[in-house]
C-alpha cells in the first residue's frame, strides 16, 4: 500500500486529492484492501544447525527456535544443516564411515518438525531443509520434510553399517532382528515424507544394490544392478570400498547423496548456495520477509551453556578431588564443613549433568573423563552416611 500511495503523491493536484481520498479509504478498510490487492509477505524464519550433532545440535534449542518461529507467525521455516563430520578437529571422516545408531538421536529431534508442528502450530508452516553437510545422525533429519535443497558441495550419508555393524557379536538371528528394526524405522521416516524407502536402504546397507531410471520425468528404483543403458547404479553392490575410492571420495558400497545425485533421484528439489538463491528457488523472492528471530541467539546460548557446564563440571571434579585429599580433618566441625562443601559440589555436578543430559552422551563422558551420574549420587549418599556415623 505504501508504494502505491507514494506513486499517487507524484500526480497533479486534483488527481492527488482523489488519490488521498482513496488512500484514506484504504486506511479505513486497510486490512481488507491489503489482503485483496497486496497479500502480506510470506514470513520466512531461518534456523541454522551447525556444530557437533547431539551436542551443539540438540532437541532443546531446536524446539525453542521452532517455538520462536511459531510465535513470529512464520509461514516458511528454513532449516540449514551443516553438522561436523570428523573424528577430531584435525581428521575429517570419510563418506563411508558409519554411525547408523545416531538414528536414535535424530529420532529425538525429528518430531519437532513433524508431530509437534501438527500439535502446536495453529497453521502448518512449510518446512524446508537446506543441507550442506548431514553425515551420520543428521542424515535422517532432512527426510522429515518433502522439501529438501542441497548446497552444491553438500553431502548426506554416513549411515552405512546395517548388516555389518554388529558383526562378531551374538547370534546371527539377533543381529538380523536389530538390523531389521532399525531399517524399518529409517524407512518409515522416508515414507512419511513421500520418499522411496529403497533410498535409505542404499544409504544404510552395504552390499545393497540400487539402480534407477527415469520414467515420465520421475525416478523409478530397482533393487538390482542396471540392466538397460538408461539405468544408473547408485551403489556398487559391494560390501566394502577400495582405499582408492575412500581417498578420492568416490565410495559406493553405500549411497552418499551429493547435490547432483540427490537432484537426479528427486530427493533434492534444487541446488542453492546462498539464502537469496534458495528463497528465489522457493518462489518467494517477490513477496517475502526474513524474520529477525531469536534462533541464532538460542543456538549460541545453548552452545555457550553446555560449554560452560562442561568447564564447571571439570572444575568441580578437581575441587572434589582436592577436598578428598584433605578429608581427614581433625575436628568434627572441620569434617562436617568439608562434607558440606563436597555435597554442594556433588549437587552442582548432578544438577548440571541432569540439565544437559541430552547433550552429555557416552562420548562426552569419555572425552571429558566425567564418570556417570550414578557415581556422583552414590558418593553423595556415602558422605551422608559418613556424617551420620561421625562423632564429635
Amino acid at each position, binding site marked *: 500500500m505504501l508504494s502505491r500511495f507514494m506513486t499517487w503523491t507524484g500526480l497533479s493536484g486534483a488527481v492527488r486529492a482523489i488519490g488521498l481520498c482513496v488512500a484514506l479509504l484504504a486506511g479505513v478498510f486497510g486490512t481488507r484492501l491489503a489482503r485483496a490487492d497486496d497479500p502480506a509477505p510470506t514470513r520466512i524464519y531461518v534456523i541454522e544447525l551447525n556444530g557437533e550433532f547431539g551436542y551443539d545440535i540438540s532437541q532443546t534449542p531446536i524446539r525453542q527456535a521452532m517455538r520462536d518461529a511459531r510465535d513470529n507467525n512464520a509461514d516458511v521455516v528454513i532449516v540449514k544443516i551443516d553438522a561436523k563430520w570428523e573424528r577430531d578437529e584435525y581428521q575429517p571422516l570419510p563418506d563411508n564411515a558409519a554411525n547408523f545408531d545416531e538414528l536414535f538421536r535424530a529420532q529425538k529431534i525429528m518430531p519437532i518438525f513433524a508431530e509437534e508442528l501438527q500439535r502446536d502450530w495453529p497453521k502448518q508452516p512449510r518446512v524446508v531443509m537446506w543441507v550442506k553437510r548431514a553425515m551420520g545422525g543428521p542424515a535422517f533429519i532432512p527426510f522429515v520434510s518433502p522439501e529438501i535443497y542441497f548446497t552444491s558441495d553438500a553431502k548426506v550419508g554416513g549411515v552405512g553399517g546395517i548388516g555389518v555393524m554388529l558383526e562378531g557379536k*551374538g547370534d546371527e538371528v539377533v543381529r538380523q532382528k536389530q538390523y*531389521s528394526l532399525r531399517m524399518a524405522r529409517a524407512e*518409515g521416516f522416508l515414507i512419511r515424507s513421500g520418499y522411496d524407502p529403497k533410498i535409505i536402504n542404499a544409504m544404510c546397507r552395504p552390499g545393497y544394490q540400487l539402480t534407477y531410471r527415469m520414467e515420465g520425468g520421475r525416478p523409478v528404483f530397482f533393487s538390482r544392478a542396471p540392466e538397460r543403458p538408461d539405468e544408473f547404479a547408485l551403489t556398487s553392490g559391494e560390501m566394502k570400498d577400495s582405499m582408492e575410492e575412500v581417498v578420492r571420495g568416490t565410495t559406493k558400497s553405500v549411497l552418499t547423496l551429493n547435490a547432483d545425485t540427490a537432484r537426479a533421484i528427486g530427493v533434492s528439489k534444487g541446488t542453492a548456495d546462498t539464502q537469496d538463491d534458495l528463497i528465489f528457488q522457493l518462489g518467494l523472492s517477490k513477496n517475502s520477509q526474513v524474520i529477525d528471530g531469536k534462533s541464532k541467539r538460542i543456538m549460541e546460548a545453548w552452545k555457550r551453556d553446555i560449554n560452560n557446564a562442561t568447564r564447571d563440571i571439570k572444575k568441580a571434579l578437581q575441587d572434589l578431588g582436592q577436598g578428598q585429599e584433605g578429608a581427614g580433618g581433625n575436628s568434627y566441625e572441620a569434617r562436617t564443613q568439608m562434607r558440606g562443601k563436597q555435597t554442594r559440589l556433588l549437587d552442582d555436578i548432578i544438577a548440571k549433568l541432569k540439565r544437559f543430559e541430552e547433550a552429555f552422551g557416552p562420548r562426552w563422558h569419555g572425552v571429558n573423563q566425567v564418570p556417570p551420574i550414578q557415581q556422583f549420587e552414590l558418593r553423595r549418599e556415602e558422605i551422608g*552416611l559418613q556424617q551420620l556415623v561421625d562423632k564429635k
Partner: protein
Amino acid sequence: MNIAIRRLVTGLAFSLVLGAGLMMPMAQAEAAGRAKVTLKDGSVVEGEIVREAEGIIWLKVKSGKTDETRMIAPTEVSKVERDVTDAETVAKPLDKPAEAAASATPAPAVAPAPTPGAGDEPKARKPGSGAPRAAVLTLGEGDGKDMVGVYVMAKPLHDAIPLLKAEGVDIVVFRVNSGGGALLEIQKLSDVIYNEYRKNFRTVAWVDWAISAAAMTSHAMEEIYMTPEGAYGACTGWSGELVAVKDMDLEKILFQMEKISTRGNHDPKIMRAMQIMEPLSATVSPQGEVTFYQDTTSGDILLNPKDRVLTFNSQTAAKVKFSAGTAATLDELAKAMQLPEVEWVGVKKPGYIWPICKAEQMQMDFREKTARDEQQFQEYVQILNAALQMGSSGSEETKAKLAGKAREMMNKIMAAINNNPNMALFQFNIMPEKFREEWVEPTEKKIKELTKKEKK
C-alpha cells in the same frame, strides 16, 4: 556384602514367560482321530489330528514318503469333518472356524473372536451426539517409558476397563509406541486384550513403533493401523550379549505366537518370519485375498528375504493387508476406520494429539510412578549397599545407625516392588515370586548381622 544391581533381564524374563506359557489358560486338546478339513480356497486336507487349540488344527498329512504336520488356522477353514467312530464327543461337523474354536477351546481364554460391544456389564449411557465414542490408550510412550513388562503391563490395562465403560466408550484405540521388553508379560497382555478388551470394545491397534514384545502384544488385535513411519516386527527372543533363544524354549515361544496369531486372525507365517529367519512372500489376488508363503518365490511380493528377520513398515503392511490403513492423525485414523462420525473421549492436553480420557490418564500415572520408582530405586540400593559396606567395621553405635538406614532403604525397595513386581526381575534379575526368598531374606539377614555384632 555388596548387593549388586543386575540388569540381565531378558534371560530370566524369557524363562519366566516360558513358565507362564506352560501355565497358560488357553485350552489345548490332545485330539485324536482323522479329519477332513475343507479350506476356504476349496482344497481339502485330510489327515490325523495331532492337536487342537483355539480352533487351530494340527493335522499329520502324507507328504511324499514321509508324514508332516500341518497347522491349519481357523481363518483358513471352511468345514471340518471328523471321524465319528474315534471321538463321539466331537462328532458334529463344524462349519465355521468360530464354532471350531469354541468347541476345541472351552475355557474363557479361547472363546471365539469376541463381538465388540458384547460385554457382560451394561455400559454407561453415552453422552453427546450418539456418534460412536472412541478412546486412545497408549501402550508405551517412548523416551524410556515404553518397556513391555515395566511400563506396558496387563494389570493397569485391566484396571482401566471400568473407566472406559463409565465414559461410554465403544472403541478403544491402542496407540503403540514401544521397542519391546519382557516376554513374560506378552501372554498376560494378550489375554487382557483378547478376553477383556475385544469382548467389550471394538479394539484396534494404531502402531507407530511396535517392536519385539510390543508387536507380539499387538498381535492379539485383528484391526491394525499404522502411522506413516510405523514399524511392526523384529520379534526374535534373545538375552545377554545378543544370544538368541534356542531349541525347546524357541519352539515354545513360536507355538505361543502361533496361537496369538490366531487370536488376531493373522497368518502365523507372518509372526514366524518376525521371530526367526524364515522367508516370507505373499500374493494378493484380484479379489483382494492375501496368501502368504514361507519362501521367497511363491508369492508375488517378497516381504522377507531368507536370512533376515521381518519388520513391516507402513507400506509393506498395507500392501499385504496386514494393516487396514495408514494414518498420521486422529482424523485420518477415523477415516481409515470408516467412522464418518466419532467422538473422541477425553480432555485435550498440551503435548498430545489425542484427548486424554480417564483410562489413559491412569496409564500415564502408572508409567510416571513406575519411572519415579525406577529412578529412586537405584538410590535406595546404593544407600543400602553403602550402609552395609560401612557397617562391616566401626563401633556398635555406628553399626546400629547404619543398620537403621539399611532397613529404611530395604523397606522402600520392597514398597517399590510391591507396586510393580516386575521390578524385581529388571532390577535384581530375580523372578517376582522368588524376590522374598532370594533378596529380602538374605538382606534382612545381613542387616541383622550388623545389629547382632553390636550386642556382643
